[in-house]
């Protein structure tokens, strides 16, 4: 298994390098640079030039690229041009928030979405089905930032259950949960929507498979047919969707972080973008690409876990 993981990561290396190159180029064609951001608008040209020199922005593009690649290949993502701190430190600081948020919304999505999808499939065209489909449609139809604002208005301002600034320190578990609740619910709703509908349709498909008929012919009680025989098969496309939308989730967390004032990768990248923190941007994209590669890997391993056909000796 470990060999497999290593191999997969190795295979992903060219992808990562390609991502890096694209990002590097992208970042450099953009007008504006970090020097201006750092020195402010009344800085003289002289001061700007001096700082550019210090930041290594005056080197040729190729030289910068080579430097950058060498650095990345040695496992170092460099320092933020803005704060001067190592990028990995910066990332490590907010990563727990992003992971926490992603995992929480994933858990909400799966824990609510899968049973909802099953009920929906079993009571096809019944009121439960319509209700579940409605919920999932609502989840799909709200742009994340709209629902975020609504959630804030209702739960933070009206009911005062949750804080507006969701950046409680990692140390305080109760506050952390309180500040995680709204953003997680906001993103979880999207996840839930996708999971519900995939579970439903895949469950409908699986329930008409021959082996379900076999199970019923054996006299397996209805509930067990669903939970033991159908669910695991139905989960395979669900895993695909979860894997696919994890990327979307991570992307959408940008919006959630902005509206809920939460630290996280998304906010970091928007900040880096606005401040033209080149090294930070590059580093973050590497992290993003790496996370996606990891997600894919996890998805594949989950397949192996669910579906014995995938894993062959």
């Amino acid at each position, binding site marked *: 298994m470990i060999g497999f993981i290593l191999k997969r990561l190795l295979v992903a290396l060219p992808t990562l390098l390609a991502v890096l190159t694209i990002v590097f180029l992208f970042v450099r064609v953009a007008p504006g640079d970090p020097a201006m951001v750092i020195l402010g608008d009344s800085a003289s040209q002289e001061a700007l030039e001096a700082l550019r020199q210090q930041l290594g922005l005056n080197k040729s593009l190729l030289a910068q690229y080579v430097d950058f690649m060498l650095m990345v290949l040695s496992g170092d993502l460099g320092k933020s041009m803005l704060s001067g701190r190592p990028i990995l430190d910066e990332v490590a600081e907010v990563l727990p928030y992003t992971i926490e948020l992603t995992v929480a919304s994933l858990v909400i999505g799966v824990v609510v979405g899968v049973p909802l999808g099953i009920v929906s499939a079993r009571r096809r065209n019944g009121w439960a089905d319509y209700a579940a489909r409605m919920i999932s449609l609502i989840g799909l139809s709200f742009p994340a930032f709209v629902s975020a604002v609504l959630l804030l208005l209702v739960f933070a301002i009206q009911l005062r259950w949750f804080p507006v600034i969701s950046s409680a320190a990692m140390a305080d578990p109760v506050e952390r949960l309180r500040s995680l609740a709204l953003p997680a619910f906001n993103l979880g709703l999207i996840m839930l929507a996708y999971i519900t509908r995939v579970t439903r349709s895949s469950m409908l498909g699986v329930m008409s498979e021959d*082996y379900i*008929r076999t199970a*019923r*012919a054996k*006299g*397996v*009680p209805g509930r067990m047919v669903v939970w033991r*025989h159908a669910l695991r098969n139905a989960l395979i496309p669900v895993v695909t969707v979860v894997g696919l939308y994890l990327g979307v989730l991570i992307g959408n967390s940008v919006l959630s972080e902005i509206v809920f004032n939460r630290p996280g990768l998304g906010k970091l990248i928007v900040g880096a973008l606005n401040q033209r923190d080149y090294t930070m941007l590059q580093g973050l994209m590497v992290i993003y690409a790496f996370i996606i590669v990891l997600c894919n890997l996890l998805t594949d391993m989950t397949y192996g876990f669910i579906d014995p*056909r995938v894993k062959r000796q």
Partner: protein
Amino acid sequence: MSEAPVLEVSGLTTEFRIHGQWHAAIRGVSFKLARGETLAIVGESGCGKSITALSVMGLVPPGAGRIAGGRILLEGRDLVPLSEPEMEKVRGNRVSMIFQEPMTSLNPVLTVGFQVAESLHYHRGLGRAEARKTALALFEQVKIPSAARRFDDYPHQFSGGMRQRVMIAMALACNPAVLLADEPTTALDVTIQAQVLALLAEVRESYGMAMVFITHNLGVVASIADRVMVMYAGEVVETAPIDAVFARPTHPYTEALLRSIPRVDRNTMELQAIGGQVPAISAMPSGCRFADRCALVEPRCRAADPPLTLLPDDPTHQVRCWVRGGTVAAEAVQ
């Protein structure tokens, strides 16, 4: 036949909803099955063979289909009015079924051993270890090589013939009174088919159960069945002991069927094809349903539905035909 039949189906009608209307897929199907007897049901695709078996199992897809009439007496007990939980206790226990597609009929994510042991758990209340032991014995009985080692394999690791053996082991687990086999060998190679057929014959012998064997291969019928029931467009058109059917096919459809098979053991003289095709269940003609394809068709065939009658000279041979049929209505005899 003195002994009471283990399975007695009478007047079974099963309908499906097509565009909001109910149409009969099988109509008035009746047959009896004695202990240890093998009844083969043959007929063209779509004639209702599987639906007959599924009706007996209570597996007609709810919502889309329903049993509209008739009785299914299994060891004297009518299955039709049973509730789903009651039916679950019967299925796999007193009556079990093997399906055609060994590739798709086993759950790909559960081990074969588990799938066999499962019904022992539900019907016999066996614990994990006991169920496993019993299932292992079944594996050996259906001749799965190195059964113990392969017990925890997944279906995809088995070949088609092997999977069909697992299906058979599953069906036999609770020693049912009746085994319904829906084209269990159609998807298999001839050599494997021969093995499975032999196995079925063997287990029937040792378990003494009755078997309904559905197929459209008359060669297979000839090698396994005691009695044959020929169906056409949802109706039984002829039923007779095996020898009688081959020696003296009476319904024009049965006759045509036998003449359309090229044989491996001798040169076929002249193949005869049956022109046309089976009418759809939503567009059944009135009168004899075979009339449009029948060489012997007469005006009366289209006028009224022929009854299933006994041949005058053979009390075991029933035919549904105005032209060839006997004079005594079979229903009346029963």
